[in-house]
């Protein structure tokens, strides 16, 4: 439980704060500009990318083969920008985790692992791992929205608290999901192509 709390804490030094999960590109296009449009964005992100990531975290926590999970998650992540954001966040989390919770299973992770696999291995309990991963899928973009759009932090926090994170996490534990997120993939690719100042890596 403590591991899950530390990983979900925005002060955890895993480098997650440099990723907005597509929010920066959506905000730049004016698609997200206020609390209702942010709520819709986070809802869609949770049901798609959040469910997918949570399912893989749960599977890694159950002890399933990590190389197989890595290849299966690659096949479910067609966007190279999304693959590289997931692996960058996995790498950052792994760097901090090696010091905090060294283990043989952590060493068994593939090089630059996808973040959900790292979360699953560290937490080791499927439902907790899925909840943590689903929460991180929306908490990062939510805090990016506060920074980019100057939204009211109390209002944004209330939106996150009302999202069906636990419900999505429990569905994610049932079977390895394969949900795609076409718009998030397109936003991620456009974000990489965007010229000018970008505050976030994804």
């Amino acid at each position, binding site marked *: 439980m403590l591991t899950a709390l530390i990983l979900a804490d925005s002060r955890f030094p895993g480098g997650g704060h440099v990723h907005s999960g597509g929010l920066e590109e959506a905000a730049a296009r004016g698609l997200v500009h206020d609390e209702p449009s942010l709520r819709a964005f986070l809802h869609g*992100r949770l049901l798609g*990318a959040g469910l997918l990531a949570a399912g893989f975290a749960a599977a890694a926590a159950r002890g399933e083969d990590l190389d197989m999970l890595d*290849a299966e998650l*690659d096949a*479910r992540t067609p966007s190279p920008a999304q693959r590289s954001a997931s692996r960058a966040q996995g790498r950052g989390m792994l760097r901090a985790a090696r010091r905090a919770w060294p283990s043989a299973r952590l060493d068994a992770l593939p090089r630059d692992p996808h973040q959900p696999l790292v979360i699953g291995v560290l937490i080791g309990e499927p439902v907790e791992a899925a909840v943590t991963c689903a929460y991180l899928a929306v908490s990062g973009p939510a805090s990016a929205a506060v920074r980019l759009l100057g939204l009211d932090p109390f209002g944004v926090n209330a939106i996150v608290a009302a999202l069906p994170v636990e419900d999505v996490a429990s569905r994610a534990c049932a079977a390895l*999901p394969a949900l795609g*997120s076409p*718009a998030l993939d*397109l936003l991620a690719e456009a974000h990489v192509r965007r010229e000018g100042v970008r505050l976030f890596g994804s």
Partner: protein
Amino acid sequence: MKASARLVVALDSHGNSVVRVLRSMTPLTLVPHRRVGPLALVHLVSSVTAPLGGDSLSLTVEVGPGASLELRGVAATLLLPGSSGEESSSSVRFLVEGTVRYLPEPTVVTSRAHHTSVVEAELDGHAQLRTREVLVLGRVGEKPGTLSSSVRATRCGRPLLHQQLVVGDPLADASSAGLVGKRVVGTEMLLDSVERGTDGGEWWSVVPLAAGGSLATALGDDVVAVTGVLDAI
């Protein structure tokens, strides 16, 4: 209605791709083109209004080493509800050692439809497969029913692409992280050895997959715009 159809194409000793097995079952009617050459052309005709709720349709396509098949649709598919709200389902399974291009016409998810579509493809080391899917969320002015459409492709057992798209949740369909309120979603899976870089525009992209091949995706407000993007790749 339950139906299963099967199509087998192989290379003959003269280098022609010939249809070896053609088993149609209404509504899955397979119409081969009468021509001889390296590419076999077959049209998939829906000979009865289908699928309706309760229908279960499956098609298996096998293409042998060196053989080439183009399988085309002739008309858009309307997913319609049945009389008592049952689900409908369809599956297409490809076993490819040669080359296949599968080009169905768009699928329209009408209101109250409840459909599951599955495409599965197993490729050997040299196989090439190109498939297109264009989904239209409801006829003009109509809210869509629910659809789960999934595709899974493997090469020599290794996963290349596995994606499920679910439509029919109004909040997620409208979300800028969902389908951005667009009515038409098009994808083209290009599983071959062609090197393509990343390319894209506001609501379309072509991207290289991790284990080889590419995926093109386009979101739009009408079929003409979306198929125009896919045709240009």
